[in-house]
């Protein structure tokens, strides 16, 4: 760690850094006075926040909140969140190595794709577990919007979840919004 990275220090305090990255960051913080000050500052802020948590106010019931969370997870699928890594930081400071790395990665990826036997493309509808009603095809024409068939615990119910539709504060605003939205 040759530069002062506040995000990395934050990751260290949050326990997100593991193994070699944790070791190099700790070593840098111990040696670099600027990062040591930043480390202590962030640690102080965290301790203050822990000591004085802000009251959480929820408009939704707990049951409803979790139903929304579960529905959103089912919709989005599993997406891994990655903190900025040591390698990308290093690559930012070595642009030629970054370009070379991208070319090599593309070549390896192409080779893997070429060698791999072709597999039939699966449609989201086909991936949905079989329920009594079956969604053969589903699509939406509105930009940044997705329509996904979801499995249901109930044998008599099938759900299509349309996400990304414009939010409006009331029914009149909604009518105006969709009246002007040409698909």
């Amino acid at each position, binding site marked *: 760690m040759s530069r002062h990275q506040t995000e990395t220090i934050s990751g260290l305090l949050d326990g997100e850094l593991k193994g070699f990255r944790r070791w190099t960051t700790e070593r840098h913080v111990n040696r670099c006075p600027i990062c040591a000050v930043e480390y202590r500052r962030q640690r102080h802020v965290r301790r203050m926040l822990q000591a004085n948590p802000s009251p959480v106010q929820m408009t939704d*019931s707990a049951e409803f909140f979790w139903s929304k969370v579960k529905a959103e997870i089912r919709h989005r699928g599993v997406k891994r969140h990655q903190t900025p890594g040591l390698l990308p930081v290093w690559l930012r400071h070595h642009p030629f190595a970054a370009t070379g790395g991208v070319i090599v990665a593309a070549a390896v990826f192409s080779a893997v794709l070429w060698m791999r036997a072709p597999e039939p493309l699966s449609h989201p509808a086909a991936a949905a577990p079989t329920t009594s009603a079956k969604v053969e095809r*589903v699509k939406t024409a509105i930009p940044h919007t997705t*329509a996904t068939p979801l499995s249901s615990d109930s044998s*008599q119910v099938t759900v299509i979840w349309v996400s990304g539709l414009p939010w409006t504060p009331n029914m009149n605003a909604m009518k105006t919004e969709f009246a002007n939205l040409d698909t």
Partner: protein
Amino acid sequence: MDAQHERDEDRVRESRHLIMRVLLALLLVGLAFNTQAASIEARLVRGSNDTKAVDSKLQDLEPKLKKQFGYEYYQQLGVQKARLQENKTRRLNLGEGFVLFVTPKSIVEKVHELDLEWTSGRASLVKTTVRIPEGDYLFIKGPAVADDWILLVVTVHGS
């Protein structure tokens, strides 16, 4: 001679009328069978946590809706029914600017293949092809309005 001829002509007319009546009756019976075809019911529903959204019309559906969407209350904004006729597109005006276009494609053992398009204003919200057994439900989660969701409930009733 002329009188005899007129009497015979009347008998011919009567028999013609009888045949026409029988044919008409058969036609009506055929139509009656045809009109007993399956029908689709589409309901526009607002899911909300506001007690104002309580609606007795959705008592039968409320547990299913609650399980899927989590809201405490559901209000029926509009409902439309239409008989299904193969490859004939029906337009169901559900209110609040929402329209559902339904085109039945086929029916196999009481499972209906339907093309559905849900629109609002000029926007096509979702287009889908579903195979839905009679009595089953298709729920579509639509746009969010304030803290509520607009939902579409589709079901096919048998003949």
